């Protein structure tokens, strides 16, 4: 009890100190910010619906990027996660796959997208690859953790009859973990749809490109339209993935 209180006061102290450091308690700045906010919000409504056809197309491209990036990353994360599983491979072996996984996860998808813009040029391909690489780092880590949770007796039983590692993956690991694997995949898709909407900021395609344009040209009413579209998409994804989970997963 007393220890909880101590921890909470420490957290509050830390919050106050760091906010102060970041300029949060600068009153002049705050009031200026408030009036800017009023100005800004006055300029953002009503949304300009004239750009809907074009924005819709950009939104489709965003979803395509997210889908392709997620699925591409998924295909790589399965084998990489498998190779990183301590209960199937010796500790000296899993070091390399785990290093790759950790490295890809360390760099956010936006930075990967910048890198791919440099490599493959502007456009949605760069965004797709950026999302894919980050997806690998994120999913592969979750996957080796799921794989390590597979009952060792089942692994022992199947390896004991002389099965190959691929057969182990196909007949034990996949059936035992498919549910968690797929529900994390849905989660990743949701995440990537949100992430892909800003990839256009660095020239990597999708709706983010127009966001950046409208921010720079101060066309906030058009920006509002884009944000509303993204909101609709995210809400739709929430329902869609809940529906998939209810109908196809966890029914075991």
């Amino acid at each position, binding site marked *: 009890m007393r220890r909880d209180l101590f921890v909470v006061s420490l957290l509050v102290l830390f919050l106050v100190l760091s906010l102060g450091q970041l300029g949060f308690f600068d009153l002049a700045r705050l009031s200026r910010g408030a009036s800017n906010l009023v100005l800004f919000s006055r300029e953002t409504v009503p949304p300009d619906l004239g750009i809907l056809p074009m924005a819709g197309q950009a939104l489709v491209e965003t979803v395509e990027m997210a889908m392709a990036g997620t699925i591409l990353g998924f295909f790589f994360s399965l084998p990489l996660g498998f190779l990183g599983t301590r209960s199937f491979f010796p500790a000296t072996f899993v070091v390399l796959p785990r290093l790759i996984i950790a490295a890809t996860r360390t760099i956010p998808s936006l930075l990967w997208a910048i890198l791919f813009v440099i490599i493959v040029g502007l456009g949605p391909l760069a965004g797709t690859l950026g999302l894919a690489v980050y997806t690998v780092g994120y999913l592969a880590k979750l996957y080796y953790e799921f794989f390590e949770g597979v009952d060792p*007796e089942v692994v*022992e039983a199947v390896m004991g*009859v*002389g099965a190959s590692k691929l057969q182990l993956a196909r007949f034990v690991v996949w*059936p035992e973990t498919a549910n968690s694997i797929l529900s994390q995949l849905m989660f990743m898709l949701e995440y990537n749809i949100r992430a892909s909407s800003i990839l256009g900021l660095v020239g990597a395609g999708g709706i983010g490109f127009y966001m950046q344009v409208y921010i720079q040209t101060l066309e906030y009413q058009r920006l509002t339209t884009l944000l509303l579209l993204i909101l609709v998409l995210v809400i739709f994804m929430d329902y869609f993935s809940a529906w998939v989970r209810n109908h196809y997963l966890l029914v075991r």
Partner: protein
Amino acid sequence: MTKAAGAHPWVVQAEGVWFAYREENWVLRGISLEVPPGAFFTVMGPSGAGKTTLLKVLAGLLRPQRGRVELLGFPTDKGIPAEVRRQVGYIPQQLGLVRSLTALENVLMGCLGRQRGPGTLMGLFPKEEVERAQECLSLLGIAHKAGERVYRLSGGERQRVAIARTLLQNPPIIFADEFVSDLDFLRAAEIITAMRDIAHQKGISFVFNMHELPLVQEFGDYILLFKDGNILHQGTAKELTWPLVQEALR
């Protein structure tokens, strides 16, 4: 091919085996035993006596610190080669079944050691393996549950699936840990009868531990009674007397 089990007087032989999971914390203290081909070899002892450990050591899954184990004529001290491993059936206490696969699919796992081609990865097994798997299920009286997923089967049915998987593997020796402990007496007797018939028919040796004294006396060809890692009695089940059992359980 390895040397046939019949070429050796014993399928498993242990000589002065000592085993500890942690330094000097002996679980097995100088165990010696021999399992002849086609025998029904039962191990009895109170919980924590080291029965599971003994089975794993005999099956080559654990290596003893002292003494020596020979499995199908191969010493296990340097780890046994894959072809020998494939000829050893081991049914763990929790059975090691894949819960979300069907009974038949689980039985088919037993042939993976000889069917390592890419076809199996797409779920394609040779017709004769599928037929044999179905026969194994019939033999144990659960052919009608072949298409049922394991998580829907009862404890007794799961036990049979695990045996059927090991029968499809077709090893000359099968180890089974706490084999019928989760079953009621009649089910246990039924399964043991089925197994003994198979053992005698196919010349397979069974090494397993079990608690039910009447079953041990009725079915065991050989019996090892042990406690705290020491053997109290070793011989035929007929020689097993109540005072000996009392001594072990005290």
